[in-house]
């Protein structure tokens, strides 16, 4: 199994507070990893730190992606190398249509000019697949979209940009059962032997669809347990109380 992402002893501060305290994680190609943990454990911090969000300060450790050290690389560089992040609350951006935005993002990602008609066809097809209203493509990016539409739009971008690693931050939050099914279908369509998924979630609905290879329990800035779906059953039954640090 070839390693795609390797995080070693990562320590991260946010607003002067130490959030991650020596986190280590390895993701191989073709794998789906789930991160679970109580509120405030550092799940979102981890995802933001991988993409080097300047609001988070790395104090120790390093992150290797596809053989390259990306610890201090700029967010856009990391993105162009093939890391994608789907947001819990995608931003509304006025003045650019969803279509044009995806076109320019794809251009940056592939470093090739994009054929307008091919992209147009492809997007319409994918939007239909995700049961998205076609009209959303010509509207400003996420502006006035419902919560569900925003999440679907994230998955649409995932399919278009086809990254090597998809980082998904609570993609299921706020979605009804039907929408979770559609979004999961989209994620499964993306998945193949050469890429990988790192998903943060609180719920089990999506996990049934995605069939993770590994479940990690993140408590107080460290991964305290790693296992298969049996860990999920344990969390659903007893919460996180048996996963205190050092146990």
């Amino acid at each position, binding site marked *: 199994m070839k390693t795609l992402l390797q995080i070693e002893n990562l320590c991260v501060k946010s607003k002067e507070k130490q959030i991650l305290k020596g986190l280590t994680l390895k993701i191989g190609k073709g794998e789906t990893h789930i991160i679970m943990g109580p509120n405030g454990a550092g799940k979102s911090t981890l995802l933001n730190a991988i*993409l080097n969000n300047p*609001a988070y300060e790395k104090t120790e450790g390093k992150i290797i992606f596809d053989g390259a050290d990306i610890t201090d690389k700029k967010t856009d560089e990391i993105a162009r190398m093939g890391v994608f992040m789907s947001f819990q609350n995608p*931003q509304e951006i006025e003045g650019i249509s969803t279509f044009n935005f995806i076109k320019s*993002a794809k251009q940056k990602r592939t470093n090739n000019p994009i054929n307008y008609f091919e992209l147009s066809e492809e997007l319409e097809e994918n939007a239909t697949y995700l049961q998205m209203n076609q009209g959303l493509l010509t509207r400003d990016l996420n502006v006035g979209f419902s919560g569900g539409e925003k999440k679907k739009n994230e998955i649409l971008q995932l399919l278009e940009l086809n990254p090597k690693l998809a980082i998904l931050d609570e993609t299921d939050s706020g979605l009804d059962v039907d929408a979770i099914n559609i979004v999961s279908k989209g994620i499964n369509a993306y998945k193949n032997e050469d890429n990988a998924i790192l998903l943060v979630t609180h719920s089990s609905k999506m996990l049934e669809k995605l069939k993770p290879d590994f479940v990690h329990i993140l408590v107080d800035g460290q991964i305290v347990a790693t296992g298969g779906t049996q860990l999920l059953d344990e969390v659903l039954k007893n919460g996180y109380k048996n996963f205190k640090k050092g146990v």
Partner: protein
Amino acid sequence: MAKTELDELNTNIYDFKKKDDYAYKMKKGLNANIVKEISKQKNEPEWMLKLRLQALEIYNKLSLPDWGPDLSELDMNNLATYVKPKSEQKSSWEQVPDDIKDTFERLGIPKAERDYLAGVGAQYDSEVVYHSIKDELIKQGVIYTDIDTAIKEYPEMVKKYFSKCVPLADHKFIALHYAVFSGGSFVYVPKGKKLEMPLQSYYRLNSPESGQFEHTLIVVDEGASLHFIEGCSAPKYSKINLHAGCVELFVKKNGYLRYSTIENWSKNMLNLNTKKAIIDSGGEVDWVSGSFGSKISMLYPMSILKGDNSKTEFTGISFAGHGQNLDTGFKVVHIGKNTKSVINSRSISKNGGISTYRSFVYVMKNAQNAKCSVSCDGLMLDSKSRSDTIPVSNIQNQSVVFSHEATVGKISEEAIFYLMTRGLSEEDAKALIVKGFSNPVSKELPMEYAVEMNRLINLELEGSIG
């Protein structure tokens, strides 16, 4: 941030200097002899000289405004108020001297004229060097000429309107303007004539330590319609230059005028410009204003909704970068019944720039059923910059419908991060957010100018990341 400054200079296509080559440059300073000399150079009628001298007296009496940006660095003793370029006015670009022609070529004026304008005026320092209008418009009674020619050829019309919209004593710098004004355009659109293509005047100040004081006078007669565009720029010098122009607009019954400005003065310019419109019943004036340049700007166009059912709309954007203090806004006076005004402004500041937006809405007692809506938003690209909105209103009539919205905020770091996770650079992400923010304004501009504005925004954002 020394590097940034250098980048801004190098990349600014407006910043190229031509030799300070003139036929006549007035000695620096301001006094009655200088005013008389300007009038003499122009061979003006007596009434105009009198008006100039009267304005000078008013200028000397009035004090600097006690609000807004600090203007103490302006020293009239260090400025030449009149610089006559080495060319008489021409009606064909071929006849314009090479270095002046090259200036306007680089600014894209002759091409714009060929492509989509009905007429063009080009002013270099204190005088208009080129003026042209399509022949068929002349035949239809449209007048578009420089103001000096108008004073001589259409004296009655000029006398009837000149200084009747913006009075000499409006404020100190308009008095200064009337004392030394030179150049500018005069436009008359006859009854019922609707111009399909715009007219454009472009003002270029090349001479260092000098001032530009052009006067624009436009009369749109009953049922007529016009789109007028003005552009202005200058190369950057180390010492202060001054621009104190004046725009007087008269729109008659059911007439329509759109007045668009893209201003990109160099960052050593004090831009103290005055613009005002008087609108008769059923008439409409729409202002579109983009302020990017200058060191200090004080610019508050004004619409006077004199006639019943008259309308005005102001759409403005200002972008204040390092070392700039742009104090802009809009004023409207509702006099007639059922009058309507819509004010929509966006101001952006970055890298220590200050942008202030002031709106003044005055609804008079008899302005029954007036409607006014004000929306002004400020966006700061970093924490060093400032953005203020100062709305003032004085409503004397109870039947008015008045709405006001104002927001001021810093550019969202989350939005920048979101865009960067899709592979956009920090610069591109900021530019995209700023373009989105200014979109309500840029969509009001003719296509060519919207492109120009986006280009200016990109230019302003280049090297903005420390």
